[in-house]
């Protein structure tokens, strides 16, 4: 059966109307932006909301702009819009790079970055990119606005810090003030639209400050602070045993259908090395 479940569909045209509906229905409501996760979840009976609130009719959610040294990405902004945005490409390029690895063209035309982080699956491609920048998630409810730093956003697999009366307006990504090179490395099983077996986001600034974040190798995507501390100020040539030990202490991959934990552990070292080299070469303008 294609549609297993009846629900109310609402497409409010103002933020206030949306927040009121959200307050009224709480956990019984699902928010619809791209719908690429939501529709599948409803179809496969993983969730059964009483109401689906479509946010695409509300202008605030479709904003993609520079605001006081940051870039605001509204909740209805799709991956394709990010890939095609000169602002994203020039100021926070790793977001465009990771967006490119999400699923396929058709999915990217609908799916949104905010929807991606709301799914909070361990493998989500957007997380390492957002984690290496100073990113805030901007949420609102009828009671007012709240700012949640991205490193506090992912609480557990498929669970975020969002309350059930809140809606995410968008994310605010601070533009780094120094020159930097970035790279997103993703391991998939094939060249098709695969979920990450492991993902590594890397940013290196001119003064050799490293930002490194992982996805798919632990319950939630996260920064690798010990790895960063070890690397900061150092020139990089290749993975040493010491560095590998630190990297391995920062991840806790599992064996699942996509890969074994041994292979994931092995590959994180490889992806970090390749990512750092790529980011450095980009920093040097190669």
């Amino acid at each position, binding site marked *: *059966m294609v549609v297993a479940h*009846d629900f109310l569909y609402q497409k409010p045209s103002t933020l206030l109307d949306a927040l009121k509906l959200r307050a009224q229905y709480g956990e019984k409501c699902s928010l619809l932006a791209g719908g690429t996760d939501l529709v599948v979840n409803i179809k496969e009976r993983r969730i059964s909301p009483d109401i689906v609130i479509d946010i695409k009719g509300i202008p605030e959610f479709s904003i993609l702009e520079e605001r006081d040294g940051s870039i605001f990405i509204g909740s209805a902004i799709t991956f394709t819009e990010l890939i095609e945005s000169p602002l994203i490409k020039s100021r926070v390029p790793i977001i465009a790079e990771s967006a490119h690895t999400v699923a396929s063209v058709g999915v990217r035309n609908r799916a949104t970055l905010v929807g991606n982080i709301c799914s909070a699956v361990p493998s989500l491609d957007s997380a390492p990119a957002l984690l290496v920048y100073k990113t805030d998630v901007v949420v609102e409810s009828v009671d007012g606005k709240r700012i949640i730093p991205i490193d506090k956003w992912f609480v557990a697999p498929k669970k975020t810090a969002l309350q059930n009366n809140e809606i995410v307006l968008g994310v605010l990504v601070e533009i780094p003030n120094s020159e930097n090179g970035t790279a997103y490395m993703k391991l998939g*099983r*094939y*060249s098709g639209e695969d979920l990450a077996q492991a993902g590594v986001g890397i940013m290196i600034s001119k003064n050799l400050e490293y930002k490194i974040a992982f996805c798919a190798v632990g319950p939630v995507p996260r920064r690798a602070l010990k790895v960063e501390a070890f690397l900061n100020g150092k020139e990089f040539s290749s993975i040493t045993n010491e560095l590998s030990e630190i990297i391995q202490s920062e991840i806790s991959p599992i064996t699942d*259908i996509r890969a074994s934990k*041994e292979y994931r552990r092995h590959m994180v070292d*490889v992806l970090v090395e390749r990512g750092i080299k790529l980011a450095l070469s980009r920093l040097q303008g190669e």
Partner: protein
Amino acid sequence: MKHKVVGANVTRVDVKEKVTGAAKYTDDIQPDSFYWGAQIGSNVVSGVLKGVIKNPDFDWSDFVYVDASDIPGENEVESVVSDMPLLATKEIRYWGQPIALLAHRDKHQLEEGLKNIKIEIEENPIYVSTIDESLSLKKEIIPQNIFKKRKIERGDIESGFENAKYVFEDIYYTPHQEQMYIEPNAIISWWEGEKIVVKGSMQCPYYVQASIKTVFHKEDKDVEIIQAYVGGAFGGKEDYPSILGAHAALLAMKANEPVKMVYERAQDISITTKRHPSKTTIKMGFDENHKLTTLQMEFILDGGSYETMSSVILARGMLHAFGPYEIPNVKIDGIIVATNTPPNGAFRGFGAPQSFFATESHIDYCALKMGISPFKLREINFVQRGGSFPTGQLLENDVMIREVYDELLKRVNYPVLRKEIDDFNSLSNTKRRGFGIATFFHGAGFTGSGEVRLASIAGIRLDKNGKVAVLVANTEMGQGAHTVLSQIVAEALELPFDMIYMEEVNTQKVPNSGPTVASRTTMIVGEVLRRACVKMRDAIKYNSLDDYLEKVSQYLGDKESESFFQQHLQPPKIKWDDVNYRGDAYGTYAWAIYGVEIEVDLRSFEVTLKNIISVMDIGEVVHPILASGQIEGGIVQSMGYALYENIIFKNGRFWNADFTNYIIPSIVDIPKMDVSFLNNPYSYGPFGAKGIGELPMNGGAPAVNNAIKDALGIHLTKLPLSPEQIMEAYERDL
């Protein structure tokens, strides 16, 4: 002989409907009023059914409910061995096994109804899900867990191994493979008085008819089976529609309205048939000249929880297991074991991809061990014209293995390619390239005396306006069969292609020309049709298109039309002994070789396919574009089998029943392909054509495995050839 229509790239006969979207697939068929049907399946892997309880507080008035007590005839699924009940009454052998059926006009209500049905099963927590578990008798599903054993023997393997200078043995495993047709299984059924009509996505309308006749105790005239457009099948719709069709017809019997059943993807993957997993123990003995003197194999297939048609799949697997080699001493033991998984069934290649993976991988392994090139080893051992297969089948002029091999080496310019690869490998610190081949074949048509037993009848009908309808039960499922059969008829009648058209594939309109399986449609049915055309030409002597219409009009007189039928004639040379497995297993074979160039990343152990070269002898090529398409599609499917595809069985059920986690190659994974044909006409095929449908599936996995062996010097024995497995072997062998 120069042909006009055969060999030409005519426009597909179904192109307009498919390109414009006018073609109605089963889910597109919407009668004014109809019921949606659903299946109530077991929620445990193994146990004893105690009862089905319908919530007494729920309003059941607009529902139709069916269980085994409603079956008017036999509660069984008609197959080679009809050991599976259509609806379970007592024993539960696999998760999802059909127990009852429910229908409602409204999908949402149906969903509600399903929630209000409780199945009570006394669960048996012990179950077996792999060949090794089955053999350990951790649980006995049937006595010894063995459905069937077969044997092929020639010479004396004892003395063969005693006298051999080199002997190598290993064990190879292959997993389930899902067909992943685009359109899941779908059927609609209704009754017209006493007549049952079933229309749907299927390969074999007369199989469905046989199933319905058994379940309802009906005669042929009271069971009308119609093929709808089919969105891919690959064997997956050979036997399953026999189950789904009977389910829909049972619901329709009680609903007094059409009932439509369309599986969701997850349901389709979870409970319908798949390629049999295999375990092959193989031992080869060579003399001092590297001549393969002795082969011993134990070829075990996982039949799933009921035997159904596994024995014929075992037979085909065994009858291809010896590879394209002349071997004096051979013993092949074939075994089908039972597991608590859904019954496995037909999938392109039908047992041969499993056995070729073992044999063609093992040949390269032996070459590596003996320090001889795998190319040289094959050259020494290829079966020659005038040679024979271990069944005693004499191979005369139709052996083409050396020819396709020579052509491949020429096409890739092997010495140059070898040097390129070696140079690359000596310069690169991060990557290794490799080139591997697999040499293989496929026998078209049913095994042994199967075609004699089928006794297929096909025909043509001459209409008043001079057009000719093709009357076959063989189905178009994307492969182009209806175009190719129309070409054969046009050629045989020397009429323009557009004067030929296909009659609807409907058991009340076309004769039983057999199932659309076993690479038999072009070669077997095509030849039957050609002979039917000869009958028409004997009856109506026309010289050209100019006098054709006049002669037709004279011949028909007042009649609207006249049909000409022909039954399959077994080529006189074919002799087969079903008991001892001796003789001509197949009328002829199509011969093939793949050369696969790969690149392996030495850090990530990911395999990139760089180039795949295929050379095949498929006799006369009826439609070059369609034939190439068949081969290219088959190559991609076999690459999925080689590198990605793996059904995971967890907690008693298929765990990755979706496109997200069951990985098949996507368009961006497809490498460069070079497909070419040698043309050695088969005298008993229509205008020299042989069957090609399954052939391309047989060689992909061993060719990739051999390329990995060439690149890294490692020996892998399990599909899929995952980066994990490569990493483990590479680090172990260092």
